[in-house]
């Protein structure tokens, strides 16, 4: 190879870099890792009554209703859930129907949590052994699933729904209606 060609190699490498960067700028990457559960039918799970005057929730009832729902796994012992609670209450006022699954919780702790931090839930079921959490494939609390009228998971949010996530969740919810 001639000397002139060697000297142009840095320019060629830089050209490749610019091409890749342009492609990436035109098509920005999504920062969320797509959950494997999205697009799957809701797996079977049941929960037990835990709070007075609130019905528990199960996969069978959710599927029978043919209505979209936000299913939120939470717990009174989970610190991020405290930050999430007011956002869920806000979402409920904006028309999102929310069911809660209280993971490894006690009735007394849970009632205090709801009294202190707000209660955006239509139904709350207890999941004393974490079976529902495992069935849903959730890795921790809090996690939330949006389910459409056909009982298929359409959106999976890992971690607390923070104020900055509210608009995204609301947009996903409106897509289901």
């Amino acid at each position, binding site marked *: 190879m001639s000397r002139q060609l060697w000297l142009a190699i*840095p320019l060629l490498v830089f050209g490749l870099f610019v091409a890749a*960067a342009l492609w*990436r700028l035109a098509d920005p990457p999504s920062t969320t890792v797509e959950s494997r559960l999205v697009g799957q039918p809701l797996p079977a799970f049941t929960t037990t009554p835990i709070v007075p005057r609130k019905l528990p929730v199960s996969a069978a009832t959710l599927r029978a209703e043919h209505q979209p729902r936000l299913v939120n796994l939470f717990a009174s012992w989970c610190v991020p859930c405290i930050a999430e609670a007011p956002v869920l209450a806000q979402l409920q006022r904006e028309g999102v129907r929310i069911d809660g699954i209280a993971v490894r919780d006690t009735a007394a702790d849970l009632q205090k949590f709801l009294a202190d931090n707000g209660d955006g839930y239509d139904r709350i079921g207890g999941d004393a052994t974490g079976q529902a959490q495992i069935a849903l494939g959730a890795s921790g609390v809090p996690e939330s699933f949006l389910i459409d009228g056909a009982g298929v998971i359409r959106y999976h949010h890992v971690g607390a729904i923070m104020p900055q996530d509210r608009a995204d969740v609301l947009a996903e919810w409106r897509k289901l209606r």
Partner: protein
Amino acid sequence: MIAEAGLAALWLAAALALLQLGVALAGPRIGDVRAIAVPAAVAQGLLTLFAFAALITLFVRTDLSVELVAANSHSLKPFIYRFSGAWGNHEGSMLLWVTVLAVAGAALALLERRLSPATIRATLGAQATLALGFFAFLLIASNPFARLYPAPREGQGLNPLLQDPGLAFHPPTLYLGYVGLSVAFSLAVGALITRDVGPALARAMRPWVLGAWVLLTLGITAGSYWAYYELGWGGWWFWDPVENASLMPWLAATALLHSVNVLAARGGLRAWTIMLAVVAFSMSMVGTFLVRSGILTSVHSFAVDPSRGTFILGLLVLYVGGALALFAWRIGTVREGARFDLVSREGALIANNLLLTVILGTVFVGTLYPIFVEALTGEKISVGPPYFNAVSGPIVLLLALLLFVGPLLNWRIDRRPLLRRAIAPALVTLAALLATFMLAGPTSLLSRLGLSIATGLAVASILPLVGRNLRRTPLATWGMALSHLGVAVAMAGAACDSAFTRETLTAVRPGESVSVGPWTIRFAGVDPVAGPNWTAVQAHLVAVRGGTSDRFEPESRAFSDPPTETNEAAIRTYIDGQLYTVLGRQESDGRWQLRLWWKPYVTLIWLGGALIALGGALALLGRWWRERRQRVRAQEAWA
């Protein structure tokens, strides 16, 4: 009023940059270029300094009618963080960048007298072109002084990770380094235009490269320590894209620092030195682009905006593409320097440059590989520490071995037997290697080699001073020995960290004890505590080893504005290592998660970094001093 004055100063500075470029292009036809370009460059420096001071004033006063202040500050924030908040965001940090660029340009225009008038003119033109692009970026795409109407009643806080003394120091130091390399870039471009590549250029470039390199070294060392104690992950280097973005210009600058000496002393490595000067600043700009455009995901979450990314990419194409094209076109006509033998100081420095370039290539490819793969196959992958460590680790060891003899060689040709001089460090290395097998427990071969070669290098680094009259040894030689010793110290720290760190991840109830390494740690319980804009759970730990007993109080903090949680690790340094404690979450059964590390000699990593920088500073001082003395002598002789 302050915001408007700051903005006006920036526009005025931009106009002056245009004027500077104009006179540089017009050349001697319009008279003495320096008579216009120098005052224009100095005025740019002063005006941008004024604009930067204006932004700091707005932040300190928490003037919420300015959009940037409202988005990034808060009246409850402590004074020092209101101050440093001025550059803890995209627009403010770009203003800092532009300020440093303009001040460096002013210093270059004022001080540089060694080069031919034509080269100075071309260099000032190149510097003005750089400044113009960044002024345009600031004024068109990232105005820090934009107003917000109506003004909100309270600001939106600052990322709590950034509420740390490290932030006040780390970004400005790195920026000084990045932008200092812009002067080397402009000098290289200027010399390419006039084909005036020689020792005079190298001597003009050297103080800028050396100064920028010292600041980059300090900035990277400080950044590494900041990540170590603030993120609470117990690691000191994560191969995060943004860390790599600061490492790549440093690697190029390190290579340049060595090759520029060959050019200054022997007139050799002309094309290579010019190439490195272009690459070093190009890497600084590529790094800025990667951070600001959001095309790579990183822990350093800056305001990500694709339109800004497009703007910086445009500047990159113009500057880097332009300089590389100029290089390919012109460098063939630059005369080659003096010839030399393979076994010589030049030969060793070339080997050093090749190895550094291989590491640079490794980091560059590893950082950008995910983008290339996704562009070609649509598959998402991530490149992590295993790749970077496996590839760069052995090369670093080779570089260290090269240091055993390299600094002892003569220029041009060295016929003396090589091995006899390296015998002391080689024996020390072998003894240390034997010791690691006999004394240290099971660990990787790489850390054993790292530790023993570091020990040998510590001896080798002092050899250039042995047998000399120490009082007449130039300060630059002392600086070199100190920097190379710093490399040994940092390597030893890194090897100890990877070989001997003991880690315990556990969940405990109050009153229970756990052990990590030689320590027994009792968990006494937790208490709530509160600060100006956060509340926290504070753990009480008592660590006991032999007769030593110390209290540790790591915290898990919740910040109110914006709501964020951070871990405040409690770390204490002992003579033989650091004990690092982090409080995690409370589990459902009431136990608290604890993460504990015993890290023998880990502080050597940052001590080594500081020594490397100190050596560079000594060399800079020594060269400056010597030149001043030579000038004074020349004047005396003339009079």
